[in-house]
């Protein structure tokens, strides 16, 4: 008669904390990966249990991208560090026009981090990935001593496939091209800031964190090679994105402030804190630069998509050897939208 197999006790997710053994590579690590990550991500790659994922690669041009996520607080209205990590890397791939294939996720956990929070984050990532039709096929966890990480830091890396003939790049903007924005700006930054207790305001604003590859696919189908470039205005906001493109393409922009959608609550929070919405981060929006002839077609497919309902033309590309991003204000005057200097800090006066 065979001896009964030792049954390891399940993780105490409700009350348990991450400890150094979870990063040591032994039984505790395996249990953490199994009961939290494999459970949440649930795909055949992880079921195999290897340190790597092997898969066939379709022919064509591949895109790879990686990003680290150190956001604080970890949980905010409309998302968390996990869903953000999935959406953010998918979006980086999508901005090249790529169809995302697979994601990898690595975690640096702080000793003492509640397992319940880790599970919440993992499940959020699993949901975000499955909604996007992408799997998290491999990953890693390490644990550092208490105080050496803010709860958890996540790095996600993604690969995707670009359709043949598509060449979206930040240096392709040309004078006369139109600039299209997919929706309202500032939502994510304000949602996150509202949770920083030092600023002390409450709002119903949700982060706009979302995976944009579906929207992008529709746009690529509608505009083809007349689409010059795509970029998502994350850290530093729309202003930073436009300045980056201006630098890369060696051009300028002329933007209409009144055509840029801003939610009233976002405008109000920015008034309150003395911030300019143009510099506040977005996690579910994109900027497209395209030849004027395809503007109508692009707007039509974007507005038909849930993530592009408020899509609008916000301006055009100009010839400018100082690469100025100029803006006509709603007031009727003119101003430059410059690079962000330092970190955008709330003003008193």
């Amino acid at each position, binding site marked *: 008669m065979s001896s009964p197999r030792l049954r390891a006790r399940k993780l105490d997710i409700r009350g348990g904390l991450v400890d150094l053994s979870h990063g040591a590579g032994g039984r505790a690590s395996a249990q953490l990966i199994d009961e939290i990550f494999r459970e949440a991500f649930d795909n055949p790659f992880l079921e195999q249990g290897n340190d790597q994922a092997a898969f066939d690669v379709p022919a064509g041009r591949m895109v790879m991208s990686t990003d680290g996520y150190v956001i604080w607080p970890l949980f905010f209205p409309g998302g968390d560090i996990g869903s953000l990590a999935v959406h953010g890397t998918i979006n980086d791939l999508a901005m090249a026009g790529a169809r995302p294939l697979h994601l990898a996720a690595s975690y640096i956990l702080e000793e003492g981090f509640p397992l319940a929070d880790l599970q919440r984050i993992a499940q959020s990532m699993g949901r975000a990935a499955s909604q996007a039709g992408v799997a998290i096929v491999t990953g890693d966890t390490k644990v550092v001593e208490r105080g050496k990480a803010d709860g958890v830091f996540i790095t996600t890396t993604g690969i995707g496939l670009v359709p043949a003939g598509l060449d979206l790049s930040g240096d392709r903007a040309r004078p006369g091209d139109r600039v299209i924005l997919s929706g309202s700006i500032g939502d994510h930054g304000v949602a996150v800031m509202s949770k920083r207790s030092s600023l002390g305001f409450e709002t*119903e604003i949700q982060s706009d964190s979302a995976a944009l590859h579906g929207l992008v696919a529709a746009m690529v189908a509608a505009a083809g090679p007349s689409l010059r470039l795509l970029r998502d205005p994350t850290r530093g906001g729309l202003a930073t994105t436009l300045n980056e493109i201006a630098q890369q393409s060696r051009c300028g922009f*002329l933007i209409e402030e009144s055509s840029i959608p801003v939610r009233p*609550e976002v405008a*109000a*929070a920015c008034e*309150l804190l003395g911030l300019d919405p143009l510099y506040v981060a977005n996690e579910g929006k994109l900027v497209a630069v395209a030849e004027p002839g395809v503007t109508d077609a692009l707007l039509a497919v974007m507005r038909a998509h849930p993530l592009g309902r408020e899509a609008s033309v916000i301006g055009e590309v100009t010839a400018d050897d100082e690469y100025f991003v100029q803006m*006509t204000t709603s007031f009727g*005057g003119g101003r430059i939208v410059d690079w962000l200097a330092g970190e955008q800090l709330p003003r008193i*006066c």
Partner: protein
Amino acid sequence: MCLAIPIRVEALLPDQMARVTLGGISKVVSIALVEDVRVGDYVLLHVGYALTRLDPEEAERTLAHMREAAVPGLPAMPSLSAVEAAA
């Protein structure tokens, strides 16, 4: 002279505090510097303190003055591209 914004008083709280809102954002601030604040009043908020109440009648009078000062048939605002074309 510093950043101060008009904001609506939603509720009075103990210790001379109040809940105020602007465009759906709400905040708890001090009203210790303003007398007889009532729900529905608009106050000027500066670094967490209300500085004064806004007078709705005077606000209307101001707008009326502005409209009087305006010349009918306003001149077209030169657009930025026109400024550059002229330059």
